[in-house]
């Protein structure tokens, strides 16, 4: 509990900013949904058949999983706040429309008859009779919608919409329970407060309510304008994939760029999504830069070349050339460390047998036991291939849950396991990884990816980023990941300390 309290104190400002963003997204989505759903219901009350059709359609929209809606929207409107709001609006329309429509159609027909018999104008009838009588239903629809929006808005973080979901997703990705709880609890509290507020507001007269909405809208719009106006001339958007390591890298990018380019403002979108999200975002111009691995470029992004080199330098050249040719992208120079497959074992064993490379291991492997992740133990580019390439023969081979394998080695249950070279657990459990001296595994080196046109227009940004070329060893990356994922320090702090230590940042 005190740890959680500390977390809240330490991240108070960021949490507040995310909360603000969450409220903003939810409010905008709710307002848009109201502005669409209520007039639609009003228009369709006199066309019951169409009303039923719309009820069906909005009902169907709501059954589509929110992630699918987000996925469908990305090719249409890209990533970020806009598609998040669109998806939320789509969800929120249903309850508001349904309740407004039901509220309007369930008014005592005798009252409608009275309204008509006294020759009321349509406007008068709508605003003085129909809407006030349907208001309790409409407000309960809005309440349902707002609670739904606040809950679903946590998913916005998946496509870079920000908000409290960022903490939930970071929490899951980096195994940080405190972030996860902070995000989840705050969004739950927000939903409760909003629901209560609407309940209170429902006792206020329609007129005052309309004034209130008007004031809120004006505040929102002027806030947005102020926000726009106070931003420096140029904004560069840098996104990172899910997880602690990309988060650290993009903070380094930001610090380096902003140090050299005082009039550039870098906006970071950490935990922005998977590879495809980011790659599409880069192409559509929603984001300007993101760090990508050479291996990923060659394996999944470019159309498959005939021969993929596993040598780091050659893979980088190949990846750079293909990205330029096929997509018009510039791939800046890579950092030193490799984030790829390797084999890990206890430090004492490595020292005892003088093991540095996998070739070294093959000399003594018959005396050692091993456990691999299920995929790794079965795929041709995993253990079976490795075995042939190096002539490895272990005393025993078993499969194991990936999350358990490092600890199993540390606890001496097994001796060797598969590993990602920069995984923080290697540092945590005092393991070492062996060099893939025959380049069996594809090379995974990280480097900034951007449009060629962007690189051409921003030579100084390119220069700033190139300072990382050949920097950051596997060990250093491992340590930083350890600090962020296991120690729960902030990526921004860890990145800054590293850059200062390397004298790249004053």
């Amino acid at each position, binding site marked *: 509990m005190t740890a959680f309290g500390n977390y809240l104190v330490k991240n108070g400002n960021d949490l507040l900013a995310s909360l603000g963003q969450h409220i903003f997204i939810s409010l905008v989505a709710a307002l848009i949904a109201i502005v669409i759903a209520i007039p639609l219901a009003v228009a369709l009350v006199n066309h019951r058949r169409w009303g039923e059709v719309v009820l069906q359609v909005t009902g169907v929209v709501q059954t589509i999983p929110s992630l699918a809606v987000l996925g469908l929207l990305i090719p249409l409107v890209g990533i970020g706040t806009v598609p998040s709001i669109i998806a939320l609006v789509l969800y929120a329309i249903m309850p508001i429309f349904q309740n407004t429509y039901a509220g309007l159609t369930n008014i*005592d027909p*005798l*009252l409608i*008859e*009275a*309204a*008509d*018999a*006294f*020759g*009321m*104008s349509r406007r*008068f009838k709508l605003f*003085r*009779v129909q809407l*006030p*009588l349907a208001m309790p239903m409409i407000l309960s629809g809005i309440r349902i919608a707002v609670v739904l929006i606040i809950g679903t808005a946590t998913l916005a973080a998946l496509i870079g919409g920000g908000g409290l979901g960022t903490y939930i997703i970071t929490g899951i990705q980096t195994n940080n329970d405190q972030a996860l709880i902070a995000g989840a609890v705050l969004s739950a509290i927000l939903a409760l407060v909003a629901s209560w507020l609407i309940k209170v507001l429902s006792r206020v007269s329609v007129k005052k309510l309309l004034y209130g909405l008007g004031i809120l809208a004006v505040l929102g719009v002027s806030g947005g304008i102020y926000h726009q106006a106070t931003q420096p001339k140029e904004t560069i958007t840098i996104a990172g994939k899910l997880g602690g390591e990309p988060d650290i890298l993009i903070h380094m990018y930001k610090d380096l760029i902003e140090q050299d380019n005082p009039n550039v403002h870098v906006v970071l979108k950490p935990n922005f999504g998977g590879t495809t999200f980011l790659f599409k975002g880069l192409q559509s111009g929603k984001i300007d830069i993101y760090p990508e691995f050479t291996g990923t470029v060659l394996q999944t992004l470019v159309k498959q070349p005939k021969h993929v080199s596993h040598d780091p330098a050659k893979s980088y050249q190949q990846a750079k050339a293909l990205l330029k040719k096929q997509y018009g992208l510039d791939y800046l120079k890579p950092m030193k460390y490799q984030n790829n497959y390797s084999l890990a074992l206890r430090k004492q064993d490595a020292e005892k047998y003088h093991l540095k490379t996998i070739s070294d291991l093959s000399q003594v492997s018959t005396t050692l036991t091993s456990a691999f992740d299920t995929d790794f133990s079965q795929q041709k580019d995993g253990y079976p291939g490795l075995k042939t390439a190096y002539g490895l023969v272990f005393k025993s081979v078993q499969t194991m849950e990936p999350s358990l394998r490092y600890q199993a080695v540390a606890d001496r249950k097994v001796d060797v396991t598969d590993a990602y070279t920069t995984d923080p657990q290697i540092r945590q459990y005092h393991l070492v990884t062996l060099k893939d001296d025959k380049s069996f595994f594809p090379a995974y080196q990280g480097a900034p990816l951007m449009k060629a046109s962007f690189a051409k227009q921003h030579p100084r940004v390119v220069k700033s980023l190139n300072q990382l070329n050949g920097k950051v060893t596997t060990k250093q990356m491992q340590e930083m990941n350890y600090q962020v994922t296991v120690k729960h320090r902030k990526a921004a702090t860890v990145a800054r300390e590293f850059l200062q230590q390397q004298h790249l940042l004053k």
Partner: protein
Amino acid sequence: MIEFENVSKTYEQQPALNDLNLTINDGELFVLVGPSGSGKTTLLKMINKLIEPTTGTVKIDGQDVGAADIRQLRHQIGYVLQAGALFPNMTVEQNAAIQLDQLDWDVRQKHDRINELLTRVDLDPQTYMERMPSELSGGEAQRVGIVRALASQPKLILMDEPFSALDPLSRRRLQQLVLKLHQELACTIVFVTHDMQEAIKLADRLAVIHNGDLLQVGRPQEIIANPASEFVADFFDDGTTRNLFLSQVLKTGFGRLPEPADQPVKLAGTDTIFTWADLLNQHPRQLVTVDDLVLEPQDLLSYMSQIGQVS
């Protein structure tokens, strides 16, 4: 003057009114009476175009309702619905002034008008102006309903079973109120009811409707004396109706020969005991003569107690 000319109405192939001709004169309190489902409401709503006839025409003062501007038409017609049908989101004053809002009366004028009318229907404006409909009894709500219908001083007022949901006491009081207002305001009232007693009590003239057919039109006494069909006769004869007429009072044995000192008012055998009671209400000692026999005020009480024992 309201004229129905060859009016028919069919709902989804179901006839509701069959080729109906009827004229309602200015200043009449005209009652449409018949069992429920007979087509009374349909007929009434054709007057303010809430329902349009399938064939035939409805005219008000010679103007075809079908061709009239619908809102202008309705602004000149008062309408009283069942149980008041007040808007639950508005105060008594707002409810009552609803038609005045449409006619752009200014606030002061509206307020004064509603004030005057509430007093007229025996509701204290101080107490009732700001109340919500949920804070009114059934009878009070319907009084407000009547004020709402009278607000713009319409020459024509339509009432559709306005008192059928009320308790007998409130109903009787409101019937009295309608009679009083009708006299004071000199307007035309078209009143729909399925209650034959109510029809007799209120009507200057009434129309009996059954299964969409207009069976008979006339003054209550005439219809009871000469029912046009067996249905009409049955409808009005539930054993007590006959007792309401002065001819029956004489048949029961009341009435004495006139004396020179008498100054009686002449009534007909087809007049009802309500007319007599009304008269006595205003002049408690008034003698009346029916068919050359004199009835004393005391006779009414004796007669009432007698028919009370029989029925």
